[in-house]
């Protein structure tokens, strides 16, 4: 089917994703104040959202902010703790059998829907069938596809009925899933919103309006009481939640504030406990408000992709030109002087924060910038470009202050060091996507965030068959490496080779690996900044008195 299907099949992750295979009965995480902390009287947690939430339907949600709310309103089989380790949710324990192809989850008997009914295995069966049902039209149904549940792919393609999905309720509290292949970390995937249970009677009664606050029935630690699309959402503590006794925050409020500078003003005025660090302000704020400014690695890479397809400019078919442009880009300046958000300069594609991935060393990453510059000049001259035959091309980016600044700086570096004339061209988002998808560009800004915490989510992108390989890079040796990794016991060796191929052929210029930067009020405790997938749970947070 699609390439996405082949992902998530890596042996190397077994050891790293803790608690995945073993029978697990670790106690659940909950808000646990430290000694000496006095809880605040008002346990309301308010944070800023960039935009209104597209959907609060677990099976349909795609975005990070929506998922964050859904994790409070619904609870899946498993949760994550502050460090990203897997812990029980509705499932108290689980075991894998038949060589990791059959999973059996034992559900807790005290998990309740917000209308008082008990959450059963049947609710999960309903939700999972719903996620793959073409009639649901879920943009995230591909996630169910990579979970490799029997018949999942065929149901999405419309060749089988949703009822044929390989998931059954053995009894009310035992859920059994059959997979098409061995997936040692299958349980980890059940911490994702798409797999959360939904209440059949409610959905059938209200149709697409079932997520309205007055209609919604959930099983999470909070219930939705208010949802004003472009203004605010409010969720309050759900007394029926099985672990309500250990929950501290009473109320969670989100405010939609599109402009990050206004959001920051309002944060300073005390209207919020959490907001994003405004672009470029991290270094200053880390000094002026050190107790509130936090930085954490993220699974995202910013890069420039070359068009190397048949329609590409001649120049970019020459690897020397691509290398010269990559070498001449001073990543330290971009990260320290332009983006100023604590990003990490990138010479390889996959972020170092990815679980189980060791960033391989590539030669040009070890050189000094002066050495890179000298080499770049040499390579470009070899390729036949110089003052008499200057290299000119268009640098495409989508409209945004950040992308613009980087493009300006990069074009200036190229011009100054190599005499290359890069014309800047911005396009509005959807036009930009169309231009990039149809290879109507020379070199384009790109960014990629991992769908899951494993290197293949990045490296598969340059597989010649991948839908997001926008430059149409094609190299059989590379394809062989990334495809071999999925069934190899030592995937990292394949990833290292793959990264080295990318560095040798330079179909893309890695610029930096993202870093998340966030402002948190000192009174807010328990925000999991060490969780790279940013799986937050309000039930694990609390607010304290600050003098």
């Amino acid at each position, binding site marked *: 089917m699609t390439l996405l299907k082949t992902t998530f099949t890596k042996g190397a992750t077994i050891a790293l994703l803790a608690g995945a295979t073993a029978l697990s009965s670790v106690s659940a995480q909950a808000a646990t104040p430290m000694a000496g902390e006095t809880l605040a009287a008002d346990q309301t947690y308010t944070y800023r959202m960039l935009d209104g939430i597209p959907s609060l339907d677990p099976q349909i949600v795609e975005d990070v902010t929506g998922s964050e709310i859904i994790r409070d309103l619904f609870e899946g089989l498993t949760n994550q703790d502050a460090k990203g380790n897997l812990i029980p949710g509705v499932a108290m324990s689980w075991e894998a059998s038949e060589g990791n192809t059959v999973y059996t989850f034992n559900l807790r008997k005290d998990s309740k829907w917000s209308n008082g009914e008990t959450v059963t295995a049947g609710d999960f069966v309903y939700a999972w069938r719903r996620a793959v049902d073409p009639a649901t039209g879920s943009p995230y149904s591909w996630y169910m596809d990579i979970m490799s549940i029997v018949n999942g792919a065929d149901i999405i393609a419309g060749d089988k009925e949703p009822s044929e999905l390989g998931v059954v309720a053995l009894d009310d509290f035992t859920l059994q899933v059959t997979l098409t292949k061995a997936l040692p970390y299958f349980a980890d995937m059940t911490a994702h919103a798409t797999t959360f249970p939904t209440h059949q009677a409610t959905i059938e009664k209200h149709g697409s309006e079932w997520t309205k606050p007055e209609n919604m029935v959930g099983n999470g630690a909070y219930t939705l009481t208010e949802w004003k699309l472009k203004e605010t959402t409010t969720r309050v503590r759900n007394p029926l939640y099985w672990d309500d006794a250990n929950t501290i925050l009473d109320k969670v409020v989100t405010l939609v504030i599109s402009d990050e500078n206004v959001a920051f003003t309002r944060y300073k005025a005390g209207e919020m406990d959490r907001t994003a660090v405004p672009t470029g302000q991290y270094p200053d704020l880390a000094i002026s408000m050190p107790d509130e400014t936090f930085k954490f690695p993220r699974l995202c890479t910013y890069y420039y992709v070359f068009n190397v397809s048949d329609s590409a400019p001649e120049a970019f078919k020459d690897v020397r030109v691509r290398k010269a442009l990559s070498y001449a880009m001073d990543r330290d300046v971009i990260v320290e*002087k332009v983006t100023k958000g604590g990003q990490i300069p990138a010479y390889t594609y996959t972020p170092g924060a990815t679980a189980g991935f060791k960033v391989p060393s590539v030669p040009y990453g070890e050189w000094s910038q002066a050495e890179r510059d000298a080499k770049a000049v040499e390579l470009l001259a070899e390729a036949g470009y110089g003052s008499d035959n200057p290299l000119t091309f268009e640098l495409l980016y989508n409209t945004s202050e950040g992308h613009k600044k980087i493009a*300006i700086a990069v074009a200036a570096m190229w011009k100054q060091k190599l005499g290359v004339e890069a014309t*800047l061209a911005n*396009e*509005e988002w959807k*036009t930009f996507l169309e231009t990039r998808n149809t290879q109507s560009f020379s070199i384009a800004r790109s960014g990629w965030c991992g769908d899951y915490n494993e290197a293949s989510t990045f490296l598969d992108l340059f597989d010649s068959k991948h839908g997001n390989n926008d430059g149409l890079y094609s190299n059989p040796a590379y394809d062989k490496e990334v495809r071999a990794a999925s069934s190899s016991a030592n995937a990292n060796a394949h990833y290292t080779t793959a990264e080295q191929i990318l560095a040798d052929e330079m179909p893309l210029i890695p610029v930096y690996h993202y870093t998340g930067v966030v402002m948190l009020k000192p009174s807010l405790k328990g925000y999991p900044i060490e969780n790279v997938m940013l799986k937050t749970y309000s039930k694990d947070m609390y607010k304290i008195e600050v003098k």
Partner: protein
Amino acid sequence: MFFMNRKKLADVADRLLDQQNIKGRSLWQDAYVRFRKNKAAVTSVVILTIMVLVSFIAPFFAPWDYETIDWNLIGDARAAGQPNIENGHYFGTDNLGRDIFARTLQGTQISLLVGLLGTAVAVVIGLFYGAIAGYFGGRLDNVMMRFVDILMSIPTMFIIIIAMVVFGRSIFLLFLAIGLFAWMDMARIVRGQTLAIKNKEYVEAARSAGVGNIRIITRHIIPNLLGIVVIYTSLLIPGLILTESFISFLGLGIQEPLTSWGALINEGAGQIQYGTPWQLGFPIGFFVVGLYCFLFIGDGLRDALDPK
């Protein structure tokens, strides 16, 4: 008898028109004399001229150009990018270490051009469209004005996006797009005034004298509209200059490193709480001065053209 009378009337009207023609020529001269007497307007012309000249000439003498990054100052605008005579950044630098002085001057060229040409497109289309609809009235008016209603309601952004995809980026398209944004309101105002003017005695006299419609519109209607058109135009200009940055946002129009007042003001406005006031102050200063000049020139022109 009746026929005789009409012919006679037509003769009289023609003679009158000839007279007006002669008078018309001297009318322009009169207007010029009156305009020169208006101190505010003349000063504004002088300031605007200086602004244009400086924006074209000064870059040859300025130590920095609009696109070069000062690598010593990049990324530290607040501490190192202040206006400074010694290092040649008279107006300071932006966050990328580019010279605000040079960028403001470069933006001045673009924005004045946008302001003038974009407005010209809007005024010319709006004036004729509105005058024709208002003068002829009835069904034609209804059709023409419903067309304006449609144009006001359709998402103009798509026209701009599609134009960009089809024709590529060009400054000519930018002016067209800006004119497109703006002529409808002008047309409605002009049409409303025309409805009132066409009932005035002098228009009725001309009509009964058999003067052609086109002539009536150009000779009698439009000159009497100028007052309101001038005022509305001066209201239009600031909006258009700022609209340019929105059109550039969609990908059409000015591309970095070229800039404009709108783009500079936008960028500076985002930084107001981070201690770099010069990034907003200088561009907006130029913008304000430019607008005042346009305004006084507009007022002067109106007074000059309308001897009442």
